[in-house]
């Protein structure tokens, strides 16, 4: 039933196909995951309403865009609306769950089902969708959606932005101090409560941005956010808790696998390969790419050569002792 058309001809255009498909997959994986990873990595909360934060961004953007605003303005508004929404939710409910990260999963799940149904009650089963900006890139007999490809560059900019925020701003430094040791940070005069609010708001904004960017490309319905969940969680598992490093490398790895199999075989095999990669990653990298990198850094710092540092985790992994954080 499944067509397994082997690559009919490997020419330059097919390679362009592969590249564009990779950029597309990479963007989707990274953007699906960033909001989730920021909140998880920085606060330890698994936000099961992540998809619905994306939904907020998408609906806000679409409503503004369909009302006639330029798309960029709509995206900005969608992002901000989601940030404000996240902050309100944090202040009213989630702040009670900081000492209880596992209970916060139940709370966010409850919020998720209420939001989906609330959206349906208020907006109906769908709203009119905005159209995709830009046209297509044409090459040889092929073409590709320019917008989807441009999202790859947006996602790189987002990753760079997150990096700058957490390394170059006062908020970022305080946030990292808070995450390392909240008590010490407090003792040093950091208003940790404020940091939590802002981090949550930042994570929400990123989810909102994802929703805003994909709003014109996916069907507008209360289940909009569910489209992103599998990719988001798979990216978190493969990437680990580090936002920038883990997520971007996971995006590259998974994007490449998915693009290759989709393109050379079929969409079906692309998906199977993605899932297989996730399972293998769970086995080989229990703490994701982040864990491997930390391990590697530790070993390098311990005076090993690059070669040695790379070799040991690989052996350990195959012996069944896992890589990363073993001691």
């Amino acid at each position: 039933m499944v067509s397994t058309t082997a690559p009919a001809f490997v020419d330059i255009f097919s390679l362009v196909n592969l590249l564009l498909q990779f950029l597309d997959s990479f963007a989707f994986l990274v953007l699906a995951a960033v909001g989730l990873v920021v909140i998880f990595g920085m606060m330890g909360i698994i936000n099961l309403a992540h998809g619905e934060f994306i939904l907020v961004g998408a609906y806000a953007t679409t409503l503004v865009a369909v009302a006639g605003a330029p798309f960029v303005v709509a995206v900005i508004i969608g992002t901000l609306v989601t940030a404000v929404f996240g902050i309100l939710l944090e202040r009213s409910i989630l702040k009670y769950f900081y000492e209880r990260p596992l209970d916060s999963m139940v709370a966010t799940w409850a919020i998720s089902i209420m939001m989906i149904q609330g959206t349906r009650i208020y907006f109906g089963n769908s709203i009119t969708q905005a159209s995709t900006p830009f046209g297509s890139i044409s090459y040889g007999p092929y073409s590709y959606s320019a917008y989807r490809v441009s999202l790859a560059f947006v996602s790189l900019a987002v990753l760079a932005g997150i990096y700058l925020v957490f390394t170059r701003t006062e908020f970022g430094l305080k946030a990292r101090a808070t995450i390392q040791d909240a008590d010490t940070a407090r003792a040093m005069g950091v208003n940790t409560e404020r940091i939590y609010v802002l981090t949550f708001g930042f994570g929400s904004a990123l989810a909102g941005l994802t929703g805003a960017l994909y709003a014109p490309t996916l069907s507008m319905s209360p289940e909009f956010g569910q489209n992103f969940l599998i990719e988001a969680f798979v990216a978190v598992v493969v990437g680990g808790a580090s936002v920038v490093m883990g997520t971007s490398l996971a995006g590259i790895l998974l994007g490449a696998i998915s693009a290759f199999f989709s393109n050379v075989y079929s969409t079906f095999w692309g998906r199977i390969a993605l899932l297989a990669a996730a399972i293998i990653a769970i086995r080989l990298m229990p703490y994701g790419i982040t864990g491997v990198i930390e391990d590697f850094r530790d070993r390098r710092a311990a005076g090993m050569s690059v070669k040695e540092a790379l070799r040991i985790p690989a052996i350990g992994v195959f012996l069944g002792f896992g890589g990363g954080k073993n001691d």
Partner: protein
Amino acid sequence: MIERLKSALGALNGPNTYGNSRAFWVLFVVGVVGVFAYPMATGSYRAGQASLYLLYGFLALSLCFIWGYCGVLSFGQVAFFGLAGYTFGVVTLNFGAGATVPAALAGVVIATVVAAVLGYFMFYGGIRDVYVAIVTLAFTLVLYTFMAQTAGSEWAIGDARLGGFNGMPGIPNITVGGTALSGETFYYLVAVLLLVTYLGMRVLVNSRYGRVMVAVREDEDRAEMLGYNTKFVKFAVFTFGGLLAGISGMLYASWGNFIDPSVFALSFAALPIVWVSIGGRESLIGAIGATFFIERLSQELAATGSEWALVVIGALLLGVILLMPKGFVPMIDSYAKVGLRWLKKKRGKSEKEVPAVDGD
């Protein structure tokens, strides 16, 4: 003889279960009688419906066991549930209704083995805390996506087509001694199994093993420094959790004569966590009770056809988790204790002892 009986019953009580007093056991017996009388009062249809909530009880127990007693939050109990259900389906569709008992065993074995393999990877790979939740969730979602696309005829095991999104229909009822169990008979099967499992788990969590599990939950490093192999403990507990979830899934497939990939969906994966959180994660009876209550309520709300049904359920969960952080049963227990202390004070010291609701 009486002494022996007493010590056997004594094994049911201990510091790791709520409800160790005579008052609790009296209520418990009344409850069990009620459960067994239920089908006689309501008939086959209600019993069939209720048996779904009872069989979910095993799923709730599995999470309660590994999360509540060993501190390991699995987001993937439904994975073992679903695998057992699919296995039951595959075996019965190949070998017919006569093979339901071996099929049930096969389902439970597969669930247990997969849990053991995943548990081995995770715990011997050093995965801890919230990462366990993420990895188990990802595992479940992977299964969901995979099963949803097994529609083609090439995805068949023997005569059983996996069926992709459409699932596997026509799974026969579990058949014991030539009788296909459905309605009341199925209800009694589930109720008896659940009762035995509940009592057995009470003995287990109050035993030496239970104490080690609780030690791992309370402080894993400390437990390790007492000479316990905590990785193995978590691995074993997780595997047993897989077995319980497998029992649940196998019964589910028999209940609905059907299974589809939605058993691996996020919305279903979250349910055991909801049940156990609401009932009280350290309470076996709370897990079973909350499962029954929440599922029954969801069903009643769905039956009203109201568009607010899901919002009401969500609000209820949020309210409970906000107001009762430890869950329902622990809260009742602590109120009962306060009440008894007050009673004790009021009666003064004239009476020697007041039975405590908790504590042995």
